[in-house]
């Protein structure tokens, strides 16, 4: 028998949740998004299972679900800001500078425009090619590169700024 939905979930759920968490910077939202998407996947499983890359397709569904998550965005964004402030404030008490830098970076990534962050997570966490990222985001590989280069620009500017302040 072909792979069933249950097997897909067993194999991929952990990775999918981690992707969604990196994407949303919010574990609760990640859980909601993945749940909603998997319920839809379940209903359309025969069709999705027959696709060339079901896994990538489900990534795309998760990403779209997040990008269009307007309803709860306002409330979540406040939470996300708290989280950002929290992360930014932590370096002072954190013993390890490396941790501080990493958390500061986390906070900066959390406030990137969503599509830029999605492209970033797909490249640096999922190690996807520009073409695959384009498939997930529904844009060309060129647009993917421009998202990533803009995100890198922002993050580099911010880190050099932080470095200046620290030194």
């Amino acid at each position, binding site marked *: 028998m072909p792979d069933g939905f249950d097997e897909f979930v067993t194999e991929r759920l952990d990775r999918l949740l981690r992707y969604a*968490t990196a994407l949303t910077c919010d574990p609760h939202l990640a859980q909601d998004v993945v*749940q909603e998407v998997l319920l839809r996947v379940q209903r359309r499983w*025969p069709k999705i299972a027959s696709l060339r890359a079901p896994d990538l397709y489900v990534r795309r569904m998760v990403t779209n679900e997040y990008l269009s998550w307007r309803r709860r965005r306002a409330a979540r964004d406040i939470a996300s800001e708290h989280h950002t402030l929290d992360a930014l404030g932590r370096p002072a008490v954190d013993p390890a500078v490396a941790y501080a830098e990493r958390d500061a*970076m986390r906070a900066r990534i959390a406030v990137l425009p969503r599509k830029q962050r999605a492209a*970033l997570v797909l490249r640096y966490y999922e190690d996807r090619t520009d073409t695959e990222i384009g498939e997930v985001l529904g844009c060309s590989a060129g647009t993917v590169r421009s998202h990533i280069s803009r995100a890198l620009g922002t993050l*580099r500017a911010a880190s050099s700024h932080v470095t200046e302040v620290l030194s």
Partner: protein
Amino acid sequence: MSFDFTEPLIREAVAAEADRAPHPQAVLDELHRRAGRVSRRRGPLFAVAAAVVVIAAVAGVIVPRLSHRGATTGPATGAAAPISQNVLLVGVDDNGYADSIVLAHLGENGTGDLVSLPRDSWVDIPGSGEDKLNAAYRLGGIDKLVATVGELTGAHIDHYATVEMAAFGRLSTAAGGVPVCLRWPVHDGFSGASFPAGEQTLTGPSALAFLRQRHGLPNGDLDRVVRLQAFLASLARRLTGSPALNDPQALNALLTVVRENVRVDPGWDLLAFAGQLHGLRTDQLRAATIPITGSAMRGPGRVDAIGVDPAQVRSFVQGLIAGTAPAPTTPPETGSAPPSGKDGCVN
């Protein structure tokens, strides 16, 4: 310099973010919990099945029994002039919720229309304000549901029948088991379905599990449709052709199931109805769903409901009843299903 520095830091930061992911078990539990709700949402299938059971029970069991005994006199039911009537068929799930709601219109000329009303339709419930259609049943039982559907569709509802899901399991037991044939062995934790390959006879809970399984099937829900068809065909053969029905005990068991799991309104002359069903031309049976305007968040609780436009619904149903509008039949869910094999076996 900063290039080498930034990218590894991004990797680390994103990985740290990902580490905050919730435990998969939380999602699995939620999926499992809601799987039941999803399967109930695929309601029309069961409503049609419920209708078939009512029809089979009435036409196949009760009437022959009564006419055989000649106990009841009264109008010659077979010759009763068909009248146009609307019957509300309600499938009730194990938790007592109206799972599937179908308005059946039987025309004078032997035609029949089955109109599904999605249970999550956002409607006005007379006396209770706006809510999901199936809330009407929860709030005020079948009377309130009849009133709500009447108000929504503008159709006068002559009769109703409710069928409990459990009826399928019990009917198969009462019928002395329902023979089915499986191509593959299956084992599914969600529905509790665990069967070997080959021919077997299902009773009670195993019949229900057989009908509910959606996971682990090659074609998912489509396979479930085929299973239901095969199951009902087999059940119908049992009910109508089985010598077991000459056994008074078996017959009584069946009638008990029908009595306990199928409720009809007190004023319904089932004999006359059975007579009309004999004249029903199955090739004239059409299935449709009321027009919907999409899903939307409704009410103060922002619940996920299905939007309907009452004016559209009304003209749609009225058109069907008047026979003026060809039913924009939903692609029959069963039509696209892969047929069961030549051997009569299913996935």
